């Protein structure tokens, strides 16, 4: 049952990812990218990473892609304004980058046996819900990286405010 579900969802995710690359209208690309994000979220749910799935939907599918859509709508990007295919150089770079990604990911995959379903951890750790576990880990083991990341985000927010502010004449 879960295996069938996994293959269906994976197929949808991959197909929409392919559509993102190959379709010609920017708006359709964005729509398929949203579908890819949602597909990824469903795969996370299968792996018992519900929190990650919800964050994936809220942040990527919900917020980031809305901004993409916004820009495309406001600029009214159409097929005409895009450069004509084919571009062998671009394709070449694309293939090289994809291969590089495979090389980078290969050691990771050789360490783990890939599984379709997540396993819940044994004992006390398994009983704690996802979000409690993440919260405790963030504020104990990973406190420093967490704080550094939040300072980075704060800097980014202040930066946007300064750029977006109206200058007094």
């Amino acid at each position, binding site marked *: 049952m879960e295996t069938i579900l996994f293959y269906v969802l994976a197929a949808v995710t991959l197909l929409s990812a392919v559509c993102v690359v190959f379709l010609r209208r920017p*708006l359709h690309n964005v729509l398929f990218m949203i579908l890819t994000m949602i597909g990824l979220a469903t795969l996370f749910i299968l792996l018992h990473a519900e929190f990650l799935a*919800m964050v994936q939907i809220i942040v990527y599918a919900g917020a980031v892609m809305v901004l993409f859509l916004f820009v495309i709508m406001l600029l009214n990007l159409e097929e005409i304004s895009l450069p004509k295919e084919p571009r062998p150089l671009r394709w070449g770079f694309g293939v090289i980058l994809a291969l590089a990604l495979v090389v980078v990911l290969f050691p990771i995959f050789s360490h783990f046996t890939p599984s379709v379903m997540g396993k819940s951890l044994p004992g006390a750790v398994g009983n704690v819900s996802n979000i409690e576990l993440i919260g405790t880990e963030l504020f104990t083991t990973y406190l420093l990286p967490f704080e550094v990341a939040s300072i980075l985000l704060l800097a980014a927010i202040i930066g946007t405010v300064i750029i977006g502010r109206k200058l007094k004449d």
Partner: protein
Amino acid sequence: MESAFPVLLVLIKTLLVIVAVLTFVAYLTLLERKVLGWIQVRLGPNRVGPWGLLQPLADGAKLLLKEEITVSAANTAVYIIAPLIVVVCALLPFGVIPFAKGLGLENILGPVANKFDLNTGVVADINLGILYIFGISSLGVYGVILGGWASNSKYSLLGSIRAAAQMISYELGLSLSVIGVLMLAGSLSLVNIVEAQDSVWKWFVFRQPLGFILFLIAGSAEIARTPFDLMECENELVAGYQTEYSSMKFGLFYLGEYAHLLFLSSLMTTLFFGGWQGPILPPIVWFLGKTFFFVFVFVWIRGTYPRLRYDRVMQFGWKTLVPVGLLNVMATAFVYTLWLKYVG
């Protein structure tokens, strides 16, 4: 075969919830028109059936029979998908709202009743319920944006741009206003949140009054009710993003809007007013009673307040709602920690 039976029952339960929601939504339109009528000292609909009770049916039939017009300049596929997104995203979150404690099915069905959440008064008790709700509602924005964009008309586009900006801004305020409740309840599951409010003085409206006010404001901006309905502001934008829609596609937008209203009211009941908890009467009656009270409040607000100016709406969202929301989160965390340390 043994596991197929409960699954079927869960499907039937889900279907029942959807049918109930759709019926309530249909009658919400009547309720809104009647209440607005009383507020404005007129009768409201009273021609179709006694007290206009058959009006929703007549409206539905009218919407179905109207001519379907697809704008020739429209992006057809997106134009058709947009209202569907709105409706789906308005119906999905009802799945995690607990409307009763249990359904009492174990007497009828025996042990089967306890499989797959069948006996609980909620379609699915997800332990990240509130995140699920925010996730779905953040997807609902797409229906509005795409509908306005695909219509290829100035009014629609302006309406949908306003909608996008407003919904994203107020989503932040909405999420912040709920965090206080989540901290005190210690759970993201709506079932647990309701169970944490088992007596009236434990209702979160008393423990989180500022959170409730923020939720009310941000919520009515999120579903675009009157003081914040700038995306379909008829004196500037005809009808905003739905200008070019007709027949049942318009009906779907309309349905989505009222389903959102019903959903927000039930969420408010669940988060701040103890959900189905209450004495004597059965839980479902308490739940529906509280929910419809908030529906009434929203209609009341619509009958009372004028629309805000757009720049004021955005300024209020970012410069008032978000800072006050953050302050509320910080104050709640501070007081709650001290409380845990010295009292509880």
